[in-house]
């Protein structure tokens, strides 16, 4: 459309008005260079160095090659990835199942759910709540003196000496429940947009042919939704890797409680990758291993993002 820009009338510079394209890009790219790209280069640089304090209390940096990267593959660090993955998957499985169910109900013309606007508003609400506050609310509610602790005790589900936050299993389930609550509304809305895009005549044809609700879902809805499901899963995985706020506040940054240790490492069972990264940066000044961890995270996110890109390209093909 803008090819028709009056390049004929402006001959004094080659670009003419279009030079404003570059000018308007300056703020974005200067900000990106200063606050993202340069820090990224520094992060990569640090990942090849090890820092230690000499007997004279001098800080010395020394090139150490790939030593920091080798440590990533030690049982201690792999445990962090495992912990993070477990927290993610416990929340994600119910999230995707519930979202699929809700989205298919909302989008079903014959079901005609009333007040669907109200329900959508309510289920999306937790997504906007400060994750760290959500974690603290859960911590207080399920703590020994908390309201829900009392409720469960009164109902006879637990005895007075039980402690939700002293067991790995219950702590994991509660943390993942927060993730579930925060994200199932978002996923429902994304899937709904996908289901709404399916041509109604497909559903009608299936009905004429006498297909059951379940068959319609299996044979029509699910295959068409596949690219969106891939998109939801991978973006959720990228978000899951960054899990930090909730386990950080619930375990006071320690990653306790210590549970049965299948890895035979010193890492506690609730400590996530980013909890370790944050502690290395602020507390122990362990820049080398923090750098290597960051680079590995970048690579993992990069690969996952590539799959997002592929799923989006695939979706475009379906549209055309």
């Amino acid at each position: 459309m803008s090819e028709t820009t009056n390049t004929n009338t402006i001959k004094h510079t080659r670009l003419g008005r279009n030079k404003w394209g570059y000018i308007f890009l300056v703020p974005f790219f200067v900000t990106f260079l200063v606050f993202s790209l340069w820090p990224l280069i520094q992060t990569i640089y640090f990942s090849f160095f090890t820092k230690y304090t000499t007997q004279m209390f001098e800080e010395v940096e020394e090139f150490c090659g790939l030593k920091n990267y080798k440590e990533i593959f030690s049982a201690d660090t792999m445990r962090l990835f495992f912990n993070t993955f477990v927290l993610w998957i416990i929340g994600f499985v119910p999230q995707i199942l519930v979202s699929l169910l809700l989205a298919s109900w909302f989008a079903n013309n014959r079901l005609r759910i009333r007040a669907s606007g109200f329900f959508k508003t309510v289920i999306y609400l937790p997504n906007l709540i400060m994750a760290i506050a959500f974690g603290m609310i859960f911590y207080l509610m399920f703590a020994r003196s908390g309201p829900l602790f009392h409720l469960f005790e009164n109902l006879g589900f637990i005895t007075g000496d039980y402690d939700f936050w002293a067991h790995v299993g219950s702590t994991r389930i509660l943390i993942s429940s927060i993730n579930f609550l925060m994200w199932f509304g978002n996923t429902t809305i994304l899937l709904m947009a996908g289901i709404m895009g399916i041509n109604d005549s497909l559903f009608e044809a299936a009905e004429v042919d006498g297909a059951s609700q379940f068959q319609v879902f299996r044979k029509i809805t699910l295959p068409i939704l596949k690219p969106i499901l891939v998109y939801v899963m991978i973006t959720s995985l990228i978000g899951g890797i960054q899990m930090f706020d909730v386990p950080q506040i619930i375990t006071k940054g320690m990653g306790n409680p210590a549970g049965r240790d299948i890895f035979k490492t010193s890492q506690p069972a609730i400590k996530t990758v980013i909890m370790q990264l944050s502690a290395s940066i602020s507390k122990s000044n362990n820049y080398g291993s923090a750098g290597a961890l960051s680079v590995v995270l970048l690579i993992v996110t990069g690969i996952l993002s590539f799959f997002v890109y592929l799923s989006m390209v695939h979706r475009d093909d379906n549209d055309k």
Partner: protein
Amino acid sequence: MATTELLTNKQKPQYEVKKSMSMAAIKVIAYIVLVLLSILCLVWFYLLIINATRSHAEINTKFAFLPGKSLISNWKKMNSSSLNFMRGLINSAIIALSSSILTVYFSMMTAFAIHAYRFPGRKFFYVFILAIMMIPTQVTSLGFYNMIVNTFNMKNNYLPLILPSIAAPVTFFYIIQYMRSNLPMSLVEAARIDGAMEVGILNRIVLPLMRPALAVQLIFAFVGSWNNYYMPALLINEPKKRTLPILIYSLRSAAEKDKDLGVQYLSMTIAVLPVIVVYLIFARYIVGGVALGGVKE
């Protein structure tokens, strides 16, 4: 399920009845599930507010569904405590407001640059911005922390928390999508013929037309900054400059003897409530905005 196959005319009416019955059954189940999930989403905020009105002793001894009478005493105790939540509210508001305005304005400017002008490298810049969209801030946080703290010596300064929001690839992406379908280039051309400057066109023609998209993105950016804990926690340690998420974390690590549960619940209510209120006012547009992001083209 067997009835769904090979229907004869004789079977059909019977099948229709069965079908509408099963539809009614699904409908009942759907409402039950929806109501239960809604309760699951809302009960936390209800309990949060209820317990903000109860005293420490009341909260400690039993569960209650109805509010208590200690709201005012909790409020007074909160304001005299060392964790100053009202100050935190102002700090968070300053950071969240300025960074969300920067995000939205400069994302619009970047989107306009890509959308309205033709210049060498345009396609490259567009693809580049999309490519960096997924990079988590945590990945660059080590270098960022080192630069801010060791190079610029700017710990406890809000600028490092505000300025990076100028480059917001996700917001850019939403806005350029909206721009493609809602900004007629003929209007831009007309303004040019009237002798308007390019910056003037951006501010006086594009900005008003983009208002619905900008408003939704402003809310998202505001909430994102308001709720952000990771970066502020690394960069802010001066008590007066703490933001709400940092203060909430301090509640968790406060010494056992300083803990007053009523005050804790009230403090968290203050941190969470503003976002809930803004959300409930603009919910329709926000939920619509989320759906828009789902159908990426």
